[in-house]
């Protein structure tokens, strides 16, 4: 019987199992030890594994990320929590200049099997410097795997695979999703780090989504079905790098209509990339020009009404679909 647990509990379970399995797995991050993590993702691990394997770091993002990468050279498996992606900007040097390139520029001699987890997205009125959506930045750099789980089962299985995978893996989480509940199998399992998943089968239009936007699309699909008799398919692009070309082609070839729903600003984003893939792979399958539903291209304002206006939601998805159908 799969058990319903919260997203953060799935993270705790995955890390706990991996730490038990391999003594070289260790966790690092700000306030992850004694406090158990800002979003509780390391609850109980400090007491169980001690300060050498559950390390409270100084506020030195680039420093401890680099340290984790260095340890991974020797076969350690660090799981680095960066409290918020807004702070991951500070670690970009080590993530991009080292983790993403060490294997390549050493001609395959080195591996950097580091896992970096960090929540992004716009939460509730956290303001311009705490509302970044950075998935587009990470997915644009070769040498890094980027996954963005949309439910507890995915994050559990992906974190476990990421720990064992020899590549650096960035897990893009969402600040609003840690208390989201979902079924996770009781038996240990490993989720692929490549691919996509059809979350809802439909025949009229494909909604490509990832992470939190999967949930907006689920709501939108209900409205479209019940009020407008439009049967939407939802494809969860849980891997942003590499994007699942095959999954994209399959769904577009079936529905002939595509929308991409992203939380970030449109420029150079997931939507742009998926559209390019559609163009390259299955342009003649289309019955309508693909559409992206994205954030307004602004830093996120503090005011709640303006903040809501900046970020897409289920209604925006419904409206965009209706427009595509000329309704």
């Amino acid at each position: 019987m799969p058990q319903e647990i919260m997203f953060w509990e799935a993270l705790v379970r995955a890390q706990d199992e991996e730490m038990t399995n391999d003594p070289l797995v260790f966790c690092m991050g700000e306030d992850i030890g004694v406090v158990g993590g800002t979003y509780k993702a390391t609850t109980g691990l400090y007491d169980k594994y001690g300060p050498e394997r559950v390390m409270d770091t100084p506020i030195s993002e680039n420093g401890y990320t680099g340290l984790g990468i260095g340890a991974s050279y020797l076969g350690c498996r660090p799981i680095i929590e960066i409290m918020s992606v807004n702070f991951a900007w500070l670690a970009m040097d080590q993530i991009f200049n080292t983790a993403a390139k060490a294997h390549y520029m050493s001609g395959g001699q080195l591996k950097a099997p580091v896992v970096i987890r960090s929540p992004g997205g716009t939460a509730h009125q956290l303001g311009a410097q705490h509302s970044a959506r950075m998935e587009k930045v990470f997915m644009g750099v070769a040498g890094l795997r980027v996954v963005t789980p949309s439910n507890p089962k995915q994050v559990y299985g992906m974190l476990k695979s990421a720990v064992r995978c020899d590549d650096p893996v960035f897990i893009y989480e969402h600040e609003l999703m840690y208390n989201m509940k979902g079924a996770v199998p009781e038996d240990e399992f490993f989720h692929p780090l490549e691919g996509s998943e059809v979350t809802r089968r439909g025949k009229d239009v494909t909604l490509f989504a990832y992470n939190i936007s999967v949930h907006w699309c689920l709501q939108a699909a209900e409205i479209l079905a019940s009020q407008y008799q439009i049967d939407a398919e939802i494809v969860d692009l849980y891997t942003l790098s590499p994007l699942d070309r095959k999954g994209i082609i399959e769904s577009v070839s079936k529905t002939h209509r595509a929308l991409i729903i992203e939380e970030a600003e449109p420029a150079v984003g997931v939507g742009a990339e998926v559209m390019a893939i559609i163009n390259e792979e299955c342009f003649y399958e289309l019955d309508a020009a693909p559409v992206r539903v994205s954030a307004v291209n602004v830093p996120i304002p503090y005011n709640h009404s303006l903040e809501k206006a900046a970020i897409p939601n289920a209604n925006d998805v419904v409206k965009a679909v209706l427009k595509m159908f000329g309704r």
Partner: protein
Amino acid sequence: MNAKVQASKKLSLEQKKRLLEEMLFARRFEERCYEAYVERKIGGFLHLYSGEEACAHGVIEAANPGSDYVLTSYRDHVHAIKCGVDPKAVMAELYAKVTGCCKGLGGSMHIFGVENRFMGGYALVGGPFPLAAGIAKGIQMKKGKEICICFLGDAANNQGTFHESLNMAKLWNLPVLYVCENNLYGIGTRIDRSTAVVDQYKRVSAYNIPSTQVDGQDVEIVYEAAVEAVEHVRSGKGPYFLELMTYRYRGHSMSDSNAYRPKSEERIWSDRDPIIMLRDRLVEAKEMTIEDYKKMDNQILDQIESEVIKFAEESPEPPLEMLEKYVLVENDPWVKGGRGGVN
């Protein structure tokens, strides 16, 4: 700008009385923010300054508020007010109203009052260090007499920007005063669990920057140390680092319960409350009575309710058109190649 007469090394009686009132106002302001947050009038992250009032007040009092440049972290309301930003505009900002000092776009972590030379609150730990050095560079380029004062927490000193900025500030002899508000914690991590050298002023000596550590709960001591620090920087001798030992009464932010702090430790610090200490001294010196103080407190509470909160409550929200207004500077001719551009 309103250059003050050279600050004397000791606070005058008049200054002490005014500082008592200002610090009490700051305390009541912050505690009212707490209530407003619980009532969901304020959103986002809210970091309160209660307990640390003597730091901002003692230091900025020793400088020229409104003329010298000040910047800090997300724990920024009180610094802004002490620089002269209207408390009504600060509260309205927290209420996300268009009358707020940043028109409701910034929020608690991003108070700005550039007219009063309060150059902002920043949410990324360590971000302001180099900005302060840069403002000091600007002062130097413009041959100004001002200085720049950068307030940051203890845990921020573990960012690379701390060391990078100290090095540049010393190298280029920049007029910047770094003030470390050492409240012993960075969120839930006690300083000795994150920092190899616990005394922050010692870390600075490697850069040949003069530094001192003083009691940050006693506004008179803070002021005296700050007068020296400010004089040093203003006289062209380059940067200075002032470490103030202090304590925040509340959690790191509203989502933090302080569970990691022993109650005995909290008591030691609350027994040395900056406001009560100054009040008791003035009472003992027969410069005021407890009744005077209570009256002052009631007036402040009344002012916060009938002016500050009222203003924030009654102000309108920003219009939807504002969403895209300040992304880039409006009507800059150079984006079209200047007024005589090819187009």
